[in-house]
Structures are given as C-alpha cells and as structure tokens.
C-alpha cells in the first residue's frame, strides 16, 4: 500500500535544496535583503492607549510635533528632520542612480534625510537630497573631503545589522564603468569591502578619527556612529566615549545589497531588544536623548516607528521598506508618461524568484530597475513616479505614528515611553523589558546587562 511521503523536520525541502546548491557551487550563498526567518519583533508589542486614566489628543485635529533634532549637542548645524524617519545608507552601485534620486526627492519632500552608502556621493544624490548623511566606511570608496564638506552629517559605519563584523560586497555584474571609477576599482571585479577601517582599530583610536572628521568639517555637522546590533550595551557606550553625536543601531533584520546568507541569518540580535539595550546604555551614561539614538532593521510601519520611539529611539531608519515603496517586489514596473506599467513577472521567475519573494539584489538583474546598473533595467524605474510612492509611504508612516502617539495622549511623538507598551509574548516582554500583557511581569527584569 502506498504511504504518504514523510518530510524531515531537520531536513525539510528547502534545506535539502540548499545543501544541493552548496555542493554544486563550492561556496556560500550570497544574496540581498535581510533575515528572512521569524524573530521576535515590534509586532509582539501593543500600545496601551488612552481611555479613562489618560486623555487622548484629538486624532484628526490637534497638533502633534514630529520634529527630530539630531546632533544638537556638539555640532554647529544639527540635522533637523520634520519626521523621525530617515532613509538608511544604500550605495549608488548597489542601487541604480534612478533609485537613489527617487529616494532623495521623496525624503526632501517630507523633510527628512537620505544616506549615501559604500561608494561615495553622486552629484545627483546631493542635488536630490536636501539633507544628506555622508557615510565613512571601512572601504573609503569614493570618500573625499570635498563631499565631506557638503554633507549635512557624517556617519562612521562600524557595521550593519545584516553583517555585523563583515564588509560589504558588490558583485562584478554591478561594477560597471561609473561605479568602478567612483570606487577606483577595475570594472567587473567582485568587490569585497574591508571589515575594518584602514586607520583606526578600536574606540580609543576612533575617538581621534572622529576628531579628524570634526576638524575636516570645522565642527559644523553631527558625527553619527552606526553599528550592527551585537554587544549593544557595550558598543553604544563605547561609541559615546569615542565622541559620537548620534548612535545608529541596526538590528539583525537589517538589509543589504549582497552578503553571505550565513551572515544575514545568523548574526546579531533583533531590533526589538537592541533598541531597549541601546536606550538603557545611554541612560546609564546619563546622555539619553542628548546623544540621539537611531534604530533600524526591519522597520515597516508607523506602528514599528512608534514602538521604537517608545522604547527609547529618537528616530528610525528604513532601507528595505523604502525600496519596497519604490516598487521592489512589485510585479509591474512604474511605467511613465509615455508607456503604461509593464508586467515583469517572467523576469522574477528567471532569477528563481517571484514578485513578493525576490532577494536577488546581488545579481544586478532587478526586474523593476532599483538594484541594478543595467541601463535597460534602470529605465524601468520612473524617478517621478517612484519618488511619489516613497513620499506617500513616508507620509503614511508618519500618520500611523502620530495616530498612535495622539491616542496615547502625546503632543510630541518623542514623548512616547516604554510604559505605553505591553508585550504579547514572553519573549518580546523579556527583550523589550515591558510587561507581558495583562500582567506586571517583565521576564528577566533586574537581571542586568547584557
């Protein structure tokens, strides 16, 4: 009698497929996007909005402040944002010039910033982004003092959530003429960026590096330090000791243009506990909100933004979500004034993906023209339409954020606090340091760091 085939829990089909793949090619899988597995997240928290103990603000009428000031402590010109949602660093090279420009225009329209990436600043990006954060990465590709002087803030990248402890990667098919020239690389090489900076080796030397950047910018703009979330309490304190005006902590859900899958899925801690630990570290130093905290890694909704702020962040950064707003993983291109949107599902299938599951940024064959250097593919992204989408998305996030904050009785979104939240799972309660819903139990409270 035929029996029902019995799959293995240890070796399900996807694992078997992956072993076959590795045994065919002889090296690790490289891909884009962030962690795909489920981890405890902001979804596991809910707000205790007003009823009788507290009064809400009028949801559609009363003013609420979303202004966010970054680097007010030391810089002559702090970065002032109209909303606490910024666009994370993504390079020209990883992204097409059109995608970078669309992000810049959208951010400018809502009064927030974009961030350069591993490969330098393009004139188009500087033009499109009214507020631009200039990254200083281990590779120093295209890093120039002239661009430093026109930046609105400088972000020293120690690491990122997708690959804390690892360097960036840009495969040869994306290292075209312009990208290669900007990075001083031969065209078509598989670029593997350094994991360590060439000129400092720890927080004691980073302090001198930050002073150097302050000298080169004459103390005008804030200096951020960005890192992947691993030993968060220590790392945040050391970043402050090294002189950071703003600390950026990127959780394990944070995305990338191309990195080893093993890095993406198996390093770092989720954004949820990272925010809490970072805020605690700043409170321990008595600099919470004086040194600002930006968190990133898997932020998708205004609810995520509100929860991150409540747990102690001053702002959030979005990367993958901004790309999705541009049109990443849509089945159709943007279309433009001359031609209607075109269905590109077949191009996803050719990559071994579908609209909705694609993470093939690393191939440079982005069906919707976002993570590519191919002129024909890039032409599929209409800058005007794509930037309108991102602008709409940023406005929607802000409305979701202010809706929740008003309902919690706040006239400033930065007045959200951990006590506005409870957790739906024991894991989230422990990680966020808020009570399990319906109880006063905070698992692990008082257990100390880390």
């Amino acid at each position, binding site marked *: 009698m035929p029996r029902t085939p019995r799959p293995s829990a240890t070796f399900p089909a996807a694992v078997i497929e992956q072993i076959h793949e590795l045994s065919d090619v002889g090296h*690790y899988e490289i891909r884009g996007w962030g962690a795909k597995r489920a981890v405890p997240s902001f979804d596991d928290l809910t707000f205790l909005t007003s009823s009788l103990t507290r009064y809400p603000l009028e949801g559609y009428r009363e003013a609420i402040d979303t202004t966010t000031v970054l680097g007010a402590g030391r810089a002559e010109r702090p970065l002032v944002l109209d909303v606490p949602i910024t666009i994370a660093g993504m390079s020209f090279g990883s992204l097409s010039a059109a995608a970078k420009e669309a992000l810049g225009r959208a951010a400018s329209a809502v009064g927030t910033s974009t961030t350069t990436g591993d490969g330098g600043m393009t004139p188009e990006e500087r033009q499109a982004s009214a507020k631009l954060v200039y990254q200083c990465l281990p590779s120093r590709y295209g890093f120039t003092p002239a661009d430093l002087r026109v930046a609105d803030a400088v972000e020293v990248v120690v690491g990122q959530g997708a690959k804390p402890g690892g360097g960036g990667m840009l495969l040869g098919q994306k290292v075209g003429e312009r990208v290669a020239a900007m990075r*001083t690389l031969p065209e078509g*090489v598989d670029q593997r960026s350094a994991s360590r900076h060439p*000129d400092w080796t720890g927080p004691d030397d980073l302090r*001198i590096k930050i002073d*150097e950047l302050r000298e080169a910018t*004459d103390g005008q703009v804030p200096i951020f330090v960005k890192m992947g979330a691993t030993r968060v309490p220590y790392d945040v304190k050391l970043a402050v000791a090294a002189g950071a005006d703003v600390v950026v902590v990127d959780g394990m859900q944070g995305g990338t243009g191309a990195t080893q899958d093993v890095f993406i899925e198996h390093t770092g801690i989720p954004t949820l506990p990272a925010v809490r630990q970072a805020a605690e570290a700043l409170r321990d130093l008595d600099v919470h909100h004086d040194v600002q905290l930006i968190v990133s890694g898997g932020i998708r909704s205004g609810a995520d933004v509100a929860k991150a702020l409540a747990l102690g962040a001053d702002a959030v950064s979005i990367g993958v979500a901004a790309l999705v707003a541009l049109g990443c993983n849509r089945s159709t291109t943007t279309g433009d004034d001359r031609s209607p949107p075109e269905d590109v599902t077949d191009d996803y299938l050719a990559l071994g993906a579908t609209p909705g599951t694609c993470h093939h940024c*690393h191939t440079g064959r982005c069906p919707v023209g976002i993570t590519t250097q191919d002129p024909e593919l890039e032409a599929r992204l209409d800058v005007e339409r794509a930037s309108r989408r991102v602008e709409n998305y940023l406005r929607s996030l802000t409305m979701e954020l202010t809706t929740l904050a008003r309902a919690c009785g706040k006239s400033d979104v930065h007045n959200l606090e951990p006590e506005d939240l409870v957790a739906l799972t024991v894991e989230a309660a422990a990680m966020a340091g808020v009570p399990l819903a319906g109880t006063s139990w905070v698992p692990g409270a008082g257990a100390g760091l880390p």
Partner: protein
Amino acid sequence: MACVSTDVVVLDAAVDDTRTINRALRALPDGARARIEHARGRHNLAVGLHHPVTVDVVGNAGYYCGALGERATVRVDGSVGWCAGENLMSGSVTVRGHAGQSTGASAHGGLVVVHGDAGARTAISLKGGRVAVAGSIGHAGAFMAQAGVLLVGGDAGDGLGDSLYEATVFVAGRIASLGADARVEDLTDDDVAVAVALADEAGFDHIDATSLTKVTSARSLYRFDALAAQRY
C-alpha cells in the same frame, strides 16, 4: 593666536587648540606660508586643508597630520603618529622623521613622503595617491591598495601587497613576505621611469631604480570561482 613674522604666519600649539589652528590655516590666502610650533605630537594638525598653502610643523605631529588634504603642502620636521596624509586628494605631506601606522591610508592622490621609516599598513587601501618611504615599512604594506604607487627605499615587512588591486609597489630592500594574491613582476623601463620620478620628487638619492623589486596583484581574487558564474 596667529602672528605674522616676516611672511610666515606662526601658530603656537602650546597656546592654541587644534580647531583654532586649523581654522587659522584655512583662513590663509592662497600661496601663504604658516608654521606650527610646539606641535608635541598633537593630533589632527593641518587636516582638511583645500587650498594651496604651505604649512611647516615644528617638532613631532600626532595622528592624521595633513589628512584629507587637497592642494596644500604640509611638512613636518620631526616624526608623526598614525595616518599621516590619510585620504589625501592632492598636494603633499612630507615627514622628515619616522611615521607611524597607516601612513597614506586610502590616499586618492597627492604625495606622502617619509624620510625615515614608516609603520604597519603603510599605503593601506591606497586609491591613486603616491607614498614614498626612504627607510623601511612595517607589515601589511599596501594592504588592499587599489591604485597608485608605494615606493620603499628600505625593507618591507610581512604580508606586503595582500589583496592588491591595481596599485604598484616598488621595494629597494628585502621583502619579508608577500601577502595573498601579491606577486613579483619584472621591472619595465616605464616602471623605472616612474620610480625615478617619484624618488626625485621625494628627494631620495639612495635608490637604484633599476634594481627595485616590483610587486603587483596576481588578480586571482578579483572574481569568485568562475565555475559558479552568476549563481552566488
């Protein structure tokens, strides 16, 4: 504060903080000369200058001396700490004494000259600049150097030229060991001309350019395994 003696602006690091000194340097007119006295290992002197001025540092400077510079001429009559001429774009940084680690790191252009020895990671991540060291350099010289030239008048430490891209290294003395993907190539007449010109510009007269060892990339790390084509 700055005071003018003959035609040289004199700045005193024993009196002024680094920001004050660098602001004074940036305020100099094109073609002006300045002297920083009592440097005593101060970090970040003459950082980010971007106009044609000449700055003489009296004594020893700390980290990042003359870093992030364009068009300026920075000269130190003593030794310097780490990262002299780091990310230089053009102009020059000249050190009469010795230099610490990461000298000329990620310099995109310009010339960094060290008349003594230089430490580890000299010309690391070099992106088109030229670095000339009269004496010896430490380990990991020209690590990941992408473009430009490193000339070493003495010996080079272990791991020279690891993960080189298109930069070229010339060594007059012994090489302790080569790093991954670095190889020795035959000198061409063009190489000799490049080395002679660089040695002349640096003011070195002890280097026989025809007997230099030239190190370049074997280019075996440029691509992942070719068999894997587009699959990674």
